[in-house]
Every structure is written in structure tokens, then in C-alpha cells.
């Protein structure tokens, strides 16, 4: 069932990782990206990869406020543009036989290079989570991503609220030191 979303509710939905908002973009922008990639020498798998990376990029840009500053573009159009230049970038870097288009093809509202730098930075920070033990990873996910309250997290992990808070502090310290390595 397709639900109609306003631009505002899509922004807040994606920002909070809402499943329905994610699904809406997969259903409504995904097929466009799929045709675009397939028409430009890519496979269905590659289209899914590009779309996934585009969604992460969109998430970062919403969180950093970068999307806000380009708000004249609808979020769905913006996501398609990100995926489009990502695919061009793949063509440029790989040994695909299709040449990369000139940069004037891109929408001027998106700073491609800054966008890539941002993604790399946060993907690297995200990868650090795999170096923490499972309980830390879960705790930080519950608090910062799923935005659960400490009391609730404590209950879920079998800890009292104070111990859960202390554990979160220790996990953040570990993450901080990993980021500095």
C-alpha cells in the first residue's frame, strides 16, 4: 500500500530511521535508480548497492543539515540525484566501458566532492562500532539511533538505570579512543 508522504514527514521519518519512510523511498525512488543504473551499464545488484549508499548519504545530509540548505529540491529528487552521481562516480573509477559524463550533468545544489568526503568520514566512524563488544554496540545503538530512554535500555539489558548510564559512558570512551587511533 503506497502512502503519500509530505517532504517534511519524509525528512523526519528518514532522520529517525522509520521503516515506513525507508520503504516508501525504496518503492518510489528505487525503481527509478534501478532503470537508470541498468540503462547505464550496471546490474540490478549494483543498482541496489548504489541505492543503499545513496540512502546512507541522504541520512547523513539530513542529520548534518546539508539537505536543509538545498531544500528547494524535493527529497525524492535529491536522493535520485545522489544515486545518479554515485553511479557516474563508479563508472569513472571502475573499468566499465561507459564513459563518465561531464560534471555539468550534476545538479549544482549538491557538492559532490564534499558529499563523498562526508560519507567516507562517517562510514569509517560507523565501522568502528564493529570493534566494540556486542553489548556496547547494542547499548549505543539503542540510545543514539533508536533513541530509547536509559530506563528502558536498562530493562532490556538487565541493568539498573545507573549501571546502564555508566556502561554507556564507558562504551563512548572506548569508541572515542578507537576514533583517535
Amino acid at each position, binding site marked *: 500500500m503506497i502512502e503519500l508522504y509530505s517532504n517534511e514527514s519524509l525528512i523526519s521519518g528518514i532522520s529517525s530511521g522509520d521503516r515506513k519512510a*525507508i520503504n516508501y523511498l525504496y518503492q518510489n525512488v528505487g*525503481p527509478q535508480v534501478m532503470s537508470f543504473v541498468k540503462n547505464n551499464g550496471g546490474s540490478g*545488484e549494483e543498482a541496489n548497492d548504489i541505492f543503499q549508499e545513496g540512502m546512507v548519504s541522504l*541520512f547523513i545530509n539530513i542529520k548534518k543539515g546539508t539537505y536543509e540548505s538545498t531544500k528547494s529540491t524535493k527529497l525524492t529528487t535529491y536522493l535520485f540525484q545522489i544515486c545518479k552521481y554515485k553511479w557516474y562516480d563508479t563508472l569513472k573509477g571502475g573499468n566499465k566501458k561507459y564513459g563518465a559524463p561531464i560534471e555539468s550533468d550534476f545538479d549544482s545544489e549538491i557538492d559532490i566532492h564534499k558529499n563523498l568526503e562526508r560519507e*567516507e568520514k562517517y562510514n*569509517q*566512524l560507523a*565501522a568502528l562500532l564493529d570493534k566494540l563488544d556486542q553489548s556496547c554496540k547494542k547499548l549505543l545503538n539503542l540510545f543514539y539511533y533508536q533513541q530509547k530512554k536509559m530506563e528502558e535500555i536498562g530493562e532490556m539489558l538487565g541493568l539498573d538505570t545507573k549501571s546502564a548510564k555508566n556502561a554507556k*559512558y564507558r562504551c563512548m570512551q572506548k569508541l572515542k579512543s578507537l576514533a583517535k587511533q
Partner: protein
Amino acid sequence: MENIERIEKYIIGAMSDEEKIAFEQEMKNDPILHQEVEEVRDLILGVQVKGFSEDLQNYRIPEEKSGEQPTTKVRRLNIQKWSAIAASLVIILMAGYWLFPKSGTSDLDGVFYTDPGLPTQMSENREYNFYDAMVDYKRGDYAEALRKWDNTNSTIGNDTLSFYKGMAEMYTGSLEKAQSMLEAITSESDLYLKAQWRLVEINIKQKNYDQAKKILQDIPQDFHEDYDKVLDYLNKK
């Protein structure tokens, strides 16, 4: 600890207006505090990006719908031509039957899609071996990915490694190996439900429908949008 709590309170917007103004003033006068705030802000976004990326693993672009039939002009064919077409169709269908025996899971087409793997970060040198193998995995060269993962001393989470080794084993047809890899992922892990979902898939492939159903019933219904479809399928078995 106090400082990190204050920083966090500021970042997540939990400070009162008064506190906020005072904190911002303090930041202006203290570049170290300012830098610390930016560091914590980045770490938090890193955690959120991780959570969001993991959630995305459960989604796929929907397969193109066949849509409306292309409009073709109907021409009158004489009876001999129809008979010839019917005869060829029988031959094609029979050949198809022998060449591609029905798997018995066509009701579930598109439900258990190929896991696309993790986004690769080749600049992350410490995990180079893990991500190098992930590139092979994403290309569909599962045997090569397995060879590299078997030789890696990656410090990436053990369950992440077990999960993708399990996936690669499954896609190369080694269902039993895949099963034991996925069964090694405990309920403590964030990948537990994903692993259980894949165990349902493996059991269906092995025609162990009862076992598949048993595992499925321990997975929360809202874990996957096709949950009911799989349950219906298993109920009919």
C-alpha cells in the same frame, strides 16, 4: 564523565535555554571544549549511520512489475498455424520442465533475496582483508570471498564474519556449512534475527519445512515485510 554528559545533553537538545546559552558562551571561550563537542557529535552520528546502514540491509528495490501486456495487433491465424504454434509450445514447455525442474519455492520468489553484503571501505586499512573479501562477495565470487575470509585475522565482529561466511557458503550451495555458521550467531548479537531468517531460507531449501516453521515462529512478525507470506507458504506444506 560530567563533561561528556553535559556535551551530550547539549547535542541532543536536552538543555534548558539558560543552560544552552551558558554552554555556548563557555564553548566560545574554550576551544578545547568546542572541539570536544564536535568530536562527540561526530561519534554519535557514526553510531546512527551504523544503525541506519544495518537497517537498510533488510530492504531491496522491488522487482520491476511486468505491467500491462504490450499492445500488439491481433492477426487472424489459420488453424494450421495455431497447431504449429501449440506444438512448439508443448516442446518448449517440456524442454523447460526437464532443464529447469520446478524448485517448489516459486511462491517465495523475491522474498529471500541475495544479501548484498556490507558497503566496502577500502581506505579502512585495519580491516583491509575483511573488506577486500567483501568486494569479491559483492561481485558474486563467493568462493574467493570465503577463501580470503578463512585466512583473515580480521578483528571485525566475529558474528559479522560468521554471517557473511554463512551467506557465501549458502550461495555456493554448501547449505550445511552455511547452517552451522549461522547457528553460531547467538541471540546476543545484532545479527541474530537476520541469521535466523536465513536459517528459515536454508531449511526451506532443504525441504525441512517443520524446522523452518519452528525457527520462523521465534522471529518477531514485524522483522520482515514478507513474514506472513513465508508463514502461509509453510502452513501449506
